[in-house]
């Protein structure tokens, strides 16, 4: 118990992510009633843990439920489908991609992002509902997201910040060019799905460049592609599509700009002594 508490205190940002995402899922199902089915949430969570467990066994790494849980919650929040089989397939594709699609001991795609784009492209029965959060929720959601930055002392937050700043700048430029009132650009930014994407998907330290300036370049690149998809080609879900297109660039950026690979938990310098500590010792980057 003491060790668990110490692990929590080791500021693993996933605990905060899990707490915020769980609140959002509960709020979405109970209050907003915008098409999240509780049985899909369970199918995604169970499948994700099963695949994570199997993948860990095969690859010989320690099983860690936390990342798979964050992925499950992101999938539940962003992916809409009426088919429980597709919901489970999303979890399988997401966690499976972590173990299969890898370069330099790092997985290439954000798991939830890879699963969402695969299903939206391959089937007619999965989609992303970007407008369903409503303006009333945005304030609270933005606060929860900012809390995340404060709590993690903005560590590795360069991707999120550079993405949001670049995306907002492009929206303001577009507004100015079209002589639109400022309220239109702000309305685009007050989008629940955009905030969830920025703070819980593109922020994933495992699939972003290792160096700080690499992450800034990456955030700006994703924002530019997202903007082009949404406002030049008029396709919805710009950010989600942009992230999957930009992901293969991460190993390239890493090759030019070296930096330390991310570990979820800052380890004390002493040797691990307890079974739990030994288990949480990162062997591979999953």
């Amino acid at each position: 118990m003491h060790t668990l508490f110490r692990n929590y205190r080791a500021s693993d940002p996933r605990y905060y992510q899990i707490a915020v995402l769980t609140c959002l899922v509960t709020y979405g199902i109970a209050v907003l009633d915008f098409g999240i089915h509780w049985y899909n949430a369970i199918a995604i969570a169970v499948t994700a843990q099963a695949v994570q467990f199997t993948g860990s066994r095969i690859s010989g790494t320690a099983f860690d439920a936390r990342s798979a849980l964050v992925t499950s919650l992101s999938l539940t929040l962003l992916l809409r489908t009426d088919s429980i089989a597709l919901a489970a397939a999303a979890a399988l594709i997401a966690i499976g991609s972590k173990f299969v699609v890898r370069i330099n001991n790092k997985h290439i795609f954000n798991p939830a992002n890879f699963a969402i784009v695969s299903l939206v492209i391959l089937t007619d029965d999965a989609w992303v509902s970007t407008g369903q959060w409503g303006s009333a929720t945005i304030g609270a959601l933005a606060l929860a997201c900012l809390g995340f930055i404060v709590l993690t002392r903005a560590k590795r937050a360069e991707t999120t910040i550079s993405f949001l700043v670049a995306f907002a700048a492009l929206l303001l430029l577009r507004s100015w060019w079209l002589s639109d009132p400022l309220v239109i650009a702000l309305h685009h930014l007050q989008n629940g799905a955009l905030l969830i994407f920025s703070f819980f998907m593109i922020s994933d330290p495992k699939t972003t460049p290792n160096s700080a300036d690499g992450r800034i370049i990456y955030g700006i690149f994703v924002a530019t592609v997202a903007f082009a998809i949404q406002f030049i080609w008029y396709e919805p879900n710009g950010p989600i599509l942009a992230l999957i297109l930009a992901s293969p660039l991460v190993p390239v950026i890493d090759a030019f700009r070296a930096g330390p690979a991310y570990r979820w938990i800052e380890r004390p310098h002493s040797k691990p002594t307890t079974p739990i500590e030994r288990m949480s010792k990162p062997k591979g980057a999953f």
Partner: protein
Amino acid sequence: MRILVLAFTAAITVLASTTAQAFCGFYVARADTSLFNKASQVVMVRDDDRTVITMANDFQGETKDFAVVIPVPTFIEREQINVADRSVIQHLDAYTAPRLVEYHDPDPCYRYDRMEMAAKSSALPAAEDARERDAGRGVTIEASYTVGEYDILILSATESDGLIRWLRENQYRIPDGAEAVIRGYLRQNMRFFVAKVNLEEHADLGYSYLRPLQVAYESNKFMLPIRLGTLNANGKQELYVYALTRTGRVETTNYRTVNLPSNTEVPEFVEDEFPQFYRAMFQRQTDKENGRAVFLEYAWDMAWCDPCAADPLSSEELRKLGVFWVGGNDGRAALKSSQAQNVYVTRLHVRYDKEHFPQDLMFQETGNRQNYQGRYIIRHPFKGESNCDMDQYQASVRERQEREAQTLASLTGWDIDEIRSKIPFIRYAREDSKQVPWWKTLWD
């Protein structure tokens, strides 16, 4: 001076109501678009990038004063414009309208099992001829056509002030603030489609109203430009969007799409006040979403309905609305005209103004085929002769009536006491025995 009507407003005649019997209750009444003033109706048929838009208006003034400016994403040729039959939109309105259904309680002495069935069913999820150039103003009349009773001009321009000046010189009345909006649309390479009534043609055709205009185009923009319409409107406007697609529901991507409360039991007197009920409920739901939501009123596979407020549209009617993937010259399809296939209809209702809807409506088609209908239920208590102890049944009806009163108050914001005063609460023997002292009737 012609009046420039930038927002479509819909004319709806109230159709004679037909009674249909179905598993999901007996259909009693519907809340069609005639309930609301200043209502526009737009039918959007969309499959991939192919789009057909039909716009109905209820312009009330002199036909010579009617003119409309519509932004369109692409250049439009003569064959892409059509004038539609108003009755098809009226049929679509009736088919998709929120509905009131009724059940009659059976004799409680014999048929409790039937009541359970009825309760279960209520819980079911519902469901170019001449080209003119005016280089000085940067306005190009790309084409001008006469289609039906309309004279139509397709305009492109390089500068918004040139276009505004052209419209003003041609006696169109332009609201303040239009220039900035038009400049934005021009920079997005949108064209402008101006329609006014050709009085001679209108007289020859003999219609007493203006028929809906249709335009077919191919564009990746799945949107409805509403910003120009918010500039000259007095107060909020009602817009109904009927989306006809192949795969499933249509929703807005930049505003929240909300299901209206449905499948709720309301007091019996709502049968006489259904329009008032629906208006009050819609207003309350709009307020609850801070005036910023688009409401879903109907989402159903066009092949059927239950209960039916009107029959589903035939393949021929769907084809008239631009559903290009049904019917056609295929003889087999014509045979199946009463059973339209592979068309999913979504009816959205939005009350909008500039403050709450600063952006145009952007849509996406989803794979959601879950049926939904705005359906409100009244239950008539059993009033026949019975030969058993009715206490238990009457107590349950009394409870139900109170529950219905509370539901109605919460849905509409109406005063609960006023609602209660309109409900003929069932009096039951046990209750009477509590209220009347035993000795009052002792020496009668």
